């Protein structure tokens, strides 16, 4: 459009921003993760693997995250799949846009406020009290893993529905007709045609939800009440309370590595299969 110098000029702000606010901070995390803790917190330059060797000190956080993140992802899928199927196959096109927008809009509104709503609902004055009126006494919901899982499904559902919907939407309905024409029952047709074709969407959704769950802080903090501790909560503790930057960086780097492994498995399994 313009000379290439003008084109480069257009890229300058974005490049500077990505370098200073993304690449540099991530590099700092990697460098710090090999350092040592200062006496008053912070960081002292060094090259040691001590922080990584000591990761097991936060075993509970890793265990909770690696247990609840996949569980949460699976529950999201369980809730999202029928919904996505319904939206893609059964809903009249006229309503599709509205229904889809209604799914995606909550995702963009304040996760803090929406999670807070569940404190309100699951808390002692909410659902348990309503259940109490119905004669079911002593139900405790808030500050339990169940509460955290409810919060997770609630928060990440849209992120699962969308990719699954997209893969089901692309599915040629004539394939289903062809399948039933060839004598498949609806269930067989679903298993043999719909399900395999929706696998890429399912994988994408699971990857997205899983990655974001790995770094989750708010939901366990608000609905887990300090009892359900995620890596994210450990990070907040390490950086804002105990100011152990070197160790915190090692935890953060490990988190990123787990995410990268997830993405590369996803790439191997799905992206390659699609080609």
């Amino acid at each position, binding site marked *: 459009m313009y000379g*290439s110098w003008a084109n480069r000029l257009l890229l300058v702000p974005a490049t500077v921003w*990505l370098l200073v606010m993304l690449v540099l901070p991530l590099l700092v995390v990697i460098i710090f993760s090999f350092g040592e803790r200062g006496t008053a917190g912070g960081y002292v330059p060094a090259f040691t693997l001590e922080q990584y060797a000591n990761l097991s000190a936060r075993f509970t956080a890793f265990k909770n995250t690696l247990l609840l993140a996949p569980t949460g992802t699976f529950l999201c899928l369980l809730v999202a799949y029928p919904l996505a199927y319904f939206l893609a196959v059964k809903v009249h096109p006229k309503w599709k*846009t509205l229904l889809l927008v209604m799914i995606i809009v909550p995702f963009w*509104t304040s996760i*803090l406020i929406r999670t807070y709503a569940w404190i309100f609902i699951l808390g002692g004055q909410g659902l348990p009290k309503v259940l109490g009126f119905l004669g079911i006494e002593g139900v405790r919901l808030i500050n339990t893993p169940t509460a955290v899982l409810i919060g997770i499904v609630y928060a990440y559902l849209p992120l699962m529905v969308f990719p699954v919907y997209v893969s089901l939407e692309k599915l040629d309905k004539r394939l289903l007709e062809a399948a039933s024409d060839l004598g498949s029952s609806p269930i067989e047709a679903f298993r043999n045609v719909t399900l395999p074709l929706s696998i890429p969407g399912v994988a994408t959704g699971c990857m997205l939800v899983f990655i974001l769950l790995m770094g989750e802080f708010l939901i366990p903090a*608000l609905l887990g009440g300090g009892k359900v501790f995620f890596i994210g909560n450990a990070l907040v503790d390490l950086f804002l309370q105990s100011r152990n930057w070197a160790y915190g960086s090692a935890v953060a780097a490990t988190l990123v590595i787990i995410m990268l492994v997830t993405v590369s498995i996803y790439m191997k399994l799905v992206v390659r299969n699609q080609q």
Partner: protein
Amino acid sequence: MRIYTLAVYLFLYIPIGIIVLFSFNAGRHASDFHGFSIKWYGTVLANPFAMEALATSLIVASTTAVLASIFGTMAALALQKVKGRIRAIYDAAIYIAIMIPGIVIGIATLIALVTAFKFLNPVLENFWPGFLGDAPHLNMGYASVIASHTMFTMALVIVIVRARISGMDRALIEASADLYATPWRTFWQVTLPQIFPAILAGFLLSFTFSFDDFIIAFFVAGTETTLPLYVFSSIRRGVTPEINAIGTMVLTVSLTLLITAQFLLRGRGSQSSTQ
């Protein structure tokens, strides 16, 4: 199937509804609804801390949205011409920026900036020309939150605007050139009006994201308090109907902006592509 879908939509919207409903509750608790009242809104508006947090959030969000949409659009336009390995590097950076959890961005930015400031502040003090008054003391605050939010939302704008550019009819550019418009005039008279809905949608999404973000601000806001930070610390102190009122206001703002953004991305987009 229909009932299931309805149930999921209720699951998504009931918590939001409850917040709105109870923000008008005269009583203090979820279980006792004492009739309609707007007194909690009055409490919020009279609360100087909440109002200051709101002002901070508005400043941060609007600055972020302006910077992100300008820099993002510039980069999206420029990246069209960038090919090969450099393009792949930019694409990777953009997707990392979008995919990486906020908590990692938060801690990485925190330690990178604090470390950088520790190094830069003495330098500034020593070399600052005296006639400019006292040397500025770099610290975490507005600027660091804005810089961090801009990084993420700029990546978002790049993706949105780029999708719009690639969806644009190339013949329009040629038609403009055919009608004697120089490339510069073609940009202002054809390209910009065509991608403007996407830029505006990107602006609104950036604003919403920045306005709602808790986790990045939690790390990099320094002594400043944004509205989500204020809400979080209030929740920590106990659930009050005042939070419902703030939540309702925040949700109203986000929903309005989001629906406008959706309208811009879908409505005008489809009109111009039907011709």
